[in-house]
């Protein structure tokens, strides 16, 4: 609380209009953004579903995918989801250091996910399975790459918010921002369920 009062002198103007826009409307607006993002992924999933078997005599999913790696990747994203949940619980308690700790853990799991995914992409491209090789690989790299880009921007957003929280504390604005990133992060985990089910598992089953 003392932190909040010491900051209040330099509060930006938009803060004063806060009570005309209750926190709920931001949540709904952000939810609508997530739903439109969901449509982007739906079109990419549809593209993959249509083109996923057009190998052009190139490698098939069973030749390329290492399910152990995908399982580790899935675990990384799942762990990051629950650690973000713990960060939100600490935020509710108003515990700044604990919130920052769990956000750091979340970011590290996110980075591990990205690292494994980049390793997988690098390995595939090294073997000649580039996006240009076949319609299946174009659709694969677009779908999984778009998800990876979302995770990348999620991590950038996470670091930005960690700086904000460490500078200004858990003020109402930062709570709202953390809430939005929470929805974004869990949404990415939901999309990943679709990716590992449709692309990796069904691809290997054939």
């Amino acid at each position, binding site marked *: 609380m003392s932190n909040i009062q010491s900051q209040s002198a330099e509060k930006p103007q938009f803060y004063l209009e806060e009570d005309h826009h209750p926190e709920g409307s931001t949540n709904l607006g952000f939810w609508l953004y997530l739903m439109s993002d969901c449509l982007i992924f739906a079109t990419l999933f549809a593209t993959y579903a*249509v083109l996923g078997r057009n190998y052009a005599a190139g490698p098939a999913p069973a030749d390329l995918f290492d399910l152990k790696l995908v399982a580790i990747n899935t675990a990384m994203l799942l762990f990051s989801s629950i650690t973000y949940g713990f960060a939100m619980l600490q935020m509710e308690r108003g515990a700044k250091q604990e919130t920052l700790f769990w956000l750091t853990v979340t970011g590290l799991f996110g980075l591990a996910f990205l690292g494994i995914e980049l390793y997988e992409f690098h390995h595939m491209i090294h073997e000649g399975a580039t996006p240009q090789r076949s319609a299946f690989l174009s659709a694969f790299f677009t779908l999984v790459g778009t998800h990876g880009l979302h995770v990348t921007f999620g991590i950038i957003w996470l670091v930005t918010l960690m700086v904000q929280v460490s500078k200004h504390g858990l003020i109402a604005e930062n709570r709202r921002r953390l809430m939005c990133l929470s929805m974004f992060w869990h949404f990415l985990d939901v999309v990943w369920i679709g990716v590992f089910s*449709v692309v990796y598992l069904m691809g290997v089953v054939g």
Partner: protein
Amino acid sequence: MTTNSTSHEDAHEAHHAHSHGHEAGHGSFKSYVTGFILSVILTAIPFWLVMGDVLDSKVATVAAIMIIGAIQIVVHMIYFLHMNTKSEGGWTMMALIFTVIIVAIALVGSLWVMHHLNTNMMVMSPEMMKNLP
């Protein structure tokens, strides 16, 4: 200015505490852990089915993957995204239902149209060409 925004802050805190129940819930430790455990189980089963080559039928394996995946998405929606019919006066649920319908049309429609396109674009032999009306 300072006192003004401080009292505003208090008012906002009170508003926040008051309206807590009406907003998208933040979940509890128990609900996050429940969701996590359910997710781990629902992730492990399809990976086990595929990596262990458990089921003989490919169709059964694919059906199991899809059903378990759908259940896991619902689990994430409830325990991690805190979806319910009451948040924002039901508008988040409305937006979700609308999105699910659009996604279903996009996915099923694409597959349906492209399947028929592929079926009707079979390579034609000269004999078939001759017999065309």
